[in-house]
């Protein structure tokens, strides 16, 4: 009896957008072009073409169409493709927060970790990046080489979630 479902999402383009100088100027250019501000750490935002998730002080994870971004960055930052290095895993159902406590150290059960939030942590010795899509769905970006081990760990833990 488990109330969490673990599914691997299909591979999709993913980029790391890094700003190394004039962050406020770049932020202004971005907001004007994209219609939403660069999200704060631990937050995500987007429009129908683009979704940005922030885990680091100077880097944003970007899903979707990045064609406009190099122009916006000019000499203040760079875009690097990193999609191949992660597998996106969807954890859905009421129990995803409890599941993330298994072998973890991050407070995924906290009410502050709500829809739109993001957090990177370590679970069962693997560096995992989490993104809360809504109350019943959380996406986990797992390093490709560890994904098979991580998914196996989650599936085993899901069996005894409610004990």
């Amino acid at each position, binding site marked *: 009896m488990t109330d969490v479902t673990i599914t691997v999402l299909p591979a999709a383009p993913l980029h790391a957008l890094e700003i190394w100088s004039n*962050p406020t100027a770049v932020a202004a250019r971005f907001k004007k072009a994209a219609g939403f501000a660069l999200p*704060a750490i631990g937050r995500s935002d987007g429009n129908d073409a683009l979704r940005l998730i922030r885990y680091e*002080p100077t880097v944003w994870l970007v899903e979707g169409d990045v064609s406009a971004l190099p122009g916006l960055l000019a000499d203040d930052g760079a875009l690097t493709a990193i999609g191949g290095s992660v597998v996106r895993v969807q954890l859905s159902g009421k129990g995803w927060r409890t599941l993330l406590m298994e072998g973890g150290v*991050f407070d995924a059960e906290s009410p502050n970790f709500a829809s739109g939030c993001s957090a990177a942590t370590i679970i069962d010795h693997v*560096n995992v990046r989490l993104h809360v899509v809504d109350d019943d769905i959380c996406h986990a970006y797992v390093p490709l080489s560890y994904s098979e081990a991580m998914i196996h760990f989650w599936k085993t833990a899901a069996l005894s979630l409610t004990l």
Partner: protein
Amino acid sequence: MMQFTCPHCGPRDQAEFIYERTVDAVVSLDAAPEDAMKSLFTRNNPRGVDEEIWRHTYGCRAWMVIARNRVTNEISATRAVGPEALP
């Protein structure tokens, strides 16, 4: 396990962090060879508070300096280090 207050992510378990070295062990790139080797090969190593460089490796991947008492593990200050970043 200790708990560090990451300047970017807030309180997090020490398992997400990796210790690099103490601030007195930093070898700056422009140091004269003798000073560089002095920094690399001698430590205050106090039985009390020292400034340590940690990285939130499994979190926001940022670097920080933590002032920590090595006997009581009391943390008195944490400051971010790295490129200028948006809040």
